[in-house]
């Protein structure tokens, strides 16, 4: 077995193991696993509508995953993606409702607003980390709550007059298109998926191919060596948080300009930012990995919605399976040891 083959096989085995354990749980608790997985499959791929919804679902997952992954690569743990995502969402919608411009200006402007908002929100923990060595984990957790309350306040008091919903954005700012709707039978699929794919490429290119990426990676692995080599450690810490936040803000634009086309007051977090952590880690914090793990998440999440209706299985089961997959991928050491054993036997 080649090393490359093994590294592809490992996550696949992890996914299978997750599904197997999920099946066992269903059997033990008296549900019909075949029906459940059929329902899951139908709920994700059964109709072109659902395929559209799956893509729609994983679009923000890709970006949130990139946000977490990017910070990780520079040695920072951005738990604040959720908050940056919320402010990005709000900023995009704000621009979307407040102006009436030609589409070529309006849409990019709204997207830009989301990116800037997310970046600014992440700038604060970055700055505090660089300047005062304040642990970014605490600050980003706190910033999530601040984002939630502040954006609710802005929706109620600034964007609307005591309303709970911004109202729909102008059509000139939407990411959706009639054509995408028509080919997917009215799903909410939108052009954001292209932005997400481009972002994957940007992340890869930036980190692996540019001098800036070289610096960021150096800082991520060894701050002392980076300083010795003449890199500005603090600047790179702030920059990495800002870029991470920009991805998160863009993820917010996916919701604000694509999925929802509005922003409403929220009783709690959307969960996208936190799912982004799992997506990033599952994807090994690389652009390509994030892309694939986001797809997996999207399929499972959308497919799960169909399980209670079609198979009578609580959709929490899918959460369990997702958790198990993350768990097995994390523990893939034992899968690799297992594969090594097999390949050794093969040789003999």
């Amino acid at each position: 077995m080649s090393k490359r083959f093994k590294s592809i096989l490992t996550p696949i085995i992890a996914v299978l193991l997750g599904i197997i354990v999920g099946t066992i749980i269903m059997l033990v608790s008296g549900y019909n696993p075949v029906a459940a997985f059929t329902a899951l499959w139908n709920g994700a791929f059964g109709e072109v509508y659902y395929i559209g919804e799956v893509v729609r679902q994983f679009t923000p997952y890709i970006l949130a995953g990139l946000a977490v992954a990017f910070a990780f690569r520079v040695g920072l743990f951005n738990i604040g993606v959720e908050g940056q995502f919320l402010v990005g969402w709000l900023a995009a919608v704000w621009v979307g409702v407040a102006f009436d411009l030609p589409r070529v200006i309006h849409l990019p402007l709204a997207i830009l607003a989301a990116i800037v908002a997310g970046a600014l929100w992440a700038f604060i923990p970055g700055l505090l980390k660089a300047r005062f060595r304040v642990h970014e984990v605490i600050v980003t957790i706190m910033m999530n709550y601040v984002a939630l309350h502040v954006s609710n306040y802005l929706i109620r008091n600034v964007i609307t007059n005591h309303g709970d919903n911004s109202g729909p954005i102008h059509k000139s700012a939407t990411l959706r298109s009639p054509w995408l709707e028509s080919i997917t039978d009215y799903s909410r699929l939108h052009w954001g998926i292209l932005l997400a794919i481009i972002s994957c490429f940007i992340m890869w290119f930036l980190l692996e191919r540019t001098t800036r990426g070289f610096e960021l990676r150096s800082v991520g692995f060894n701050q002392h060596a980076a300083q010795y080599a003449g890199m500005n450690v603090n600047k790179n810490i702030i920059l990495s948080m800002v870029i991470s936040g920009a991805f998160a803000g863009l993820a917010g634009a996916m919701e604000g300009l694509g999925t929802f086309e509005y922003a409403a007051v929220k009783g709690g977090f959307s969960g996208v930012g936190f799912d982004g952590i799992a997506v990033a880690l599952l994807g090994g914090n690389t652009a390509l990995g994030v892309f694939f793990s986001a797809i997996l998440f999207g399929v499972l999440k959308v497919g799960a919605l169909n399980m209670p209706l079609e198979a009578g299985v609580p959709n929490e089961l899918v959460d369990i399976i997702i958790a198990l997959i993350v768990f097995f991928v994390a523990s893939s050491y034992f899968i690799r040891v297992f594969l090594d054993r097999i390949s050794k036997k093969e040789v003999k």
Partner: protein
Amino acid sequence: MSLMDILIILVPSTLLWAAPLVFTALGGIFSERSGVVNIGLEGLMVIGAFSAIVFNLFTFDTFGSATPWIALLIAMAAGALFSMLHAVAAITFRADHTVSGVAINLLATGLTLFLVKLIFDKGETGIISKGFSKIDIPVLKDIPVIGKIFFQNTYWTSFLAILVAIIVWYIVAKTPFGLRLRSVGEHPMAADTMGINVTKMRYYGVILSGALGGLGGGVYAQSITSNFSHSTISGQGFMALAAMIFGKWHPLGSLGAAIFFGFAQSISIIGSSLPFLKEIPNVYLLIAPYVLTILALTGFIGRADAPKASGTHYIKGNR
């Protein structure tokens, strides 16, 4: 409101809010001091809250007023058991600690809600008939001024939290177990050469974090929500993580940090009744606890260093 009135309200509610965070943060300390990063605290609280409530609901008839306390033991056991998953993954299977912790969080939420649906055939449990309720501490409550502020209308669990924090401090700082635990988190190879079983110590650390995280969840559910649903534990585990870091991985520091969080939360609620704060928009009060925390960190706390080997794997024979 007079200052006295404010304190009478502020102190018990601060402690009530802080207690679950204290337990959980102390759990985090055990784990991280042994070198295993534990962001699964949230999930461990979920497990604790779930098992305490379910146990309480089913056995109240048997155990009567002792139920909540026994339920806490059950919550601890459940948390400890659940944390074994993290231990196995992060220690034996060399999983990235953060990834494994995230899996713990996802799994706990999914599994408990799944079980709630399975057991109760609906999305949340009923209300427990006996949780932790307000008490006046005998004798102490009669101390002038202090008694009224600290020992009246308060909760046993608040004092339990403070007591446990002191015990944990004692264990970590003063006993052979604590010394070994810390050595494993700082320099596992050195510990190994001194004949300390690194793997075993780390398992202990993680399992204790599970027990205390479960305790935190059990206390929260039984003293505040009285039932279990998807929203029972929503972010408290992360706040506990923050308290642990804020407290610089020190038991008493984390106690202080958790109390600070509770204080910030309570003051923002009291704030709306204070004459000079009455006019400011609600949003400022809502974000006050979080902003205060950030300011406090920036202002006087500054950098904190995690145990040196936390997040790393100890593989014998590697350097």
